[in-house]
């Protein structure tokens, strides 16, 4: 049964990419909704099977590592596959209605959408270093294509800046892979990790990991390397920026986290771990500060992504040379943070899209009076904001709680300050939007009411982000499952 699910998971997005390539946007939309249904069912089925009988390795083409490529299907990977299914289906549904079907170049929207989805699945499940590289490239190129599709000069400029950053990041990662292969002779992460546990750490191997994590940090827009993200996510169409901010940015972080968790102990050192944590904290402060000063609504949400990404990199210091329980807590906290940020950020971008559509201008101060006209979208924007500010009962709060516990227990109390100040700063820019929209302005009354279903989607995502806080125990229970078969070298 699991073989069928795995085959379905890998086959469907690629097949639908080809199918939608042959039709135009309108018919492509129908085909896509069928595909979304299949993909969500398959992801759910896979999640349930792993929840029932633990993770397993899946050798592609019948060959096992190190010769062939192995997919590592464990609790964490399957949870992210399910998350991708949920967020991508919401964005796909929203895009189907939001995007104007009769523009000729929009016929290429759906193929790029499906290639992006297959790239994400490849990255969540991948355990082979080079395979992850190809998955990353697949994601980056389709994301750049989506940003640039039919855009004006500014969209082109943003997509070019994004492409150059993504390519430089991939090359740095590939250089790291080359050094790793030169040193360990195998490309399977599990193989390298098990070899490192038995043998002393060879000299000169720290650079490979550093290069890979630097490349991935550039692709995740960590603080000093974040200039490319706000223009790209701000200018793209709302469903696209929702996909980018919620999932694409997380893919490269996921690989960096997996590398750090498997190889961080032997190859990494304390200084680099603390440095990455420091960069993350700087990202939180700088991103929030800029989000408060933006004039465009979607730029505010984009800079908020830069800030929220900073939290994710707290995983590095909190899992380096700490006790087993603290490391597990930190991992659980970061998983919840990724899931709740993905849901909340997607809801926020979609809701922002609706607000811009109805107000007719993308400036924040043009939102005056929208609270009276479009309360539903504003309410979903608010609920998503609650999760971003990590206030209870949202998933963000559960994540912040676990991270607080982990940093207190491991004695690194300075991360506690980052978490608390970050929460307040995010409240600053979320309520700035509320202030603008609650303001009663007599003259603005010519609003355009977007389609009803456009407003329902962000609400569903926001409620999921909120509900996550209540069911975080079950979601995380899948993660700590024992592994069925020992990873082969």
């Amino acid at each position, binding site marked *: 049964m699991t073989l069928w699910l795995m085959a379905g998971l890998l086959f469907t997005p690629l097949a639908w990419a080809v199918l939608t390539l042959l039709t135009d946007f309108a018919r492509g939309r129908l085909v896509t909704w069928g595909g979304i249904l299949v993909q969500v069912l398959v992801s759910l089925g896979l999640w349930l099977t792993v929840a029932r009988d633990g993770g397993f390795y899946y050798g592609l083409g019948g060959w096992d590592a190190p010769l062939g490529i192995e997919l590592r299907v464990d609790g964490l990977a399957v949870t992210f596959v399910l998350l991708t299914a949920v967020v991508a289906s919401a964005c796909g549904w929203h895009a189907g209605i939001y995007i104007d079907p009769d523009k000729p170049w929009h016929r290429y929207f759906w193929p790029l959408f499906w290639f992006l989805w297959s*790239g994400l699945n490849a990255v969540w499940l991948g355990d082979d270093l080079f*395979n992850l590289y190809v998955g990353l490239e697949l994601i980056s190129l389709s994301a750049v294509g989506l940003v640039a599709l039919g855009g004006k000069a500014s969209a082109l400029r943003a997509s070019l800046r994004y492409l150059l950053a993504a390519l430089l990041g991939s090359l740095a990662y590939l*250089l790291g892979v080359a050094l790793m292969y030169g040193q*360990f002779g195998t490309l399977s992460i599990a193989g390298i990790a098990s070899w490192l546990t038995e043998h002393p750490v060879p000299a*000169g191997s720290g650079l490979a990991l550093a290069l890979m994590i630097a490349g991935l940090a550039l692709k995740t827009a960590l603080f000093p390397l974040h200039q490319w993200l706000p223009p790209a996510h701000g200018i793209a169409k709302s469903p696209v920026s929702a996909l980018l901010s919620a999932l694409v940015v997380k893919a490269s972080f996921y690989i960096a986290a997996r590398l750090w968790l498997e190889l961080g102990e032997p190859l990494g050192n304390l200084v680099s771990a603390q440095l990455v944590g420091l960069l993350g904290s700087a990202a939180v402060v700088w991103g929030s500060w800029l989000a408060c000063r933006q004039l465009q609504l979607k730029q505010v949400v984009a800079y908020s992504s830069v800030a929220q990404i900073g939290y994710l990199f707290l995983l590095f210091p909190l899992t380096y040379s700490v006790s087993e329980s603290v490391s597990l807590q930190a991992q659980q906290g970061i998983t919840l943070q990724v899931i709740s940020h993905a849901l909340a950020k997607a809801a926020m971008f979609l809701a922002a899209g609706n607000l811009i559509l109805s107000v007719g201008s993308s400036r924040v101060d043009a939102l005056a009076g929208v609270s009276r006209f479009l309360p539903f979208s504003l309410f979903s924007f608010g609920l998503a904001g609650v999760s971003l500010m990590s206030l209870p009962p949202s998933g963000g709060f559960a994540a912040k709680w676990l991270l607080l516990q982990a940093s207190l227990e491991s004695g690194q109390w300075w991360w506690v300050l980052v978490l608390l100040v970050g929460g307040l700063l995010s409240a600053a820019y979320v309520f700035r939007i509320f202030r603008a929209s609650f303001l009663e302005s007599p003259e603005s009354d010519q609003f355009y009411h977007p389609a009803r279903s456009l407003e329902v989607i962000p609400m569903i995502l926001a409620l999921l982000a909120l509900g996550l806080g209540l069911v975080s125990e079950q979601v995380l229970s899948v993660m700590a499952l024992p592994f069925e078969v020992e990873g082969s070298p």
Partner: protein
Amino acid sequence: MIWTLRTLFIAVVCLAFTGVLAASIWTIADKPSPVNLPQLLSENLDRSGVEHPVTAVLLNFRSYDTLLEIGVLVIAGIAGISMAKTATLEDPELRTSDSLLYALQRWFVPLMLVLAGYLLWAGSDRPGGAFQAGAVLAATGVLMRLGGIPMEFLRPGRLLRLGLALGFTVFLLVAVASAIGGEAFLAYPPGITKTLIVIIESVLTLSIAMVLLALFVSAPVNDAEDSEEGSSS
């Protein structure tokens, strides 16, 4: 003054980076790598259905990489077409009536086609394969394009899109066929591995040539412009 300072700083950074990289390579090169992959590969080569090791790795052991890589290529093709202007291929300024080029063409095109065919066939036991053959085929197409021979199938339409995705689709169908048969995704049924691989390679060659050629043909950019979100369209 700032300009040169900046260059100097970047130069120093790159120099340091190269130095660290070279030092790391130097230290890595001393110790032998624990897993001897080539030896493991040669043991399994006969089960891969192809004699040439590189093709075996590309199309059997690590076929998932190749599948995704073809996907990447198709994305580049899609992006190229989506911004293409060429409604018609009859671009007069491309038509060259230069007799020398015309004569050259009459000699070269058949030669390059034979070379592409050879490369494709040789792939299973000698260096060669889908990518090289595809590239040579694309080069032939470029030559014919410069010669002004109209190639109807390159006009952005259903045929072009079908051509782009053909190789990828066949590869995908073979991959899923074996999965339905109960083995892992992308596993070839034992008996007919070689024939399957050759079929896939030939279809891939066509698609790669089509993608690379489409990128060249669709180069002139269209004026289409989508109003930015929210600005009063």
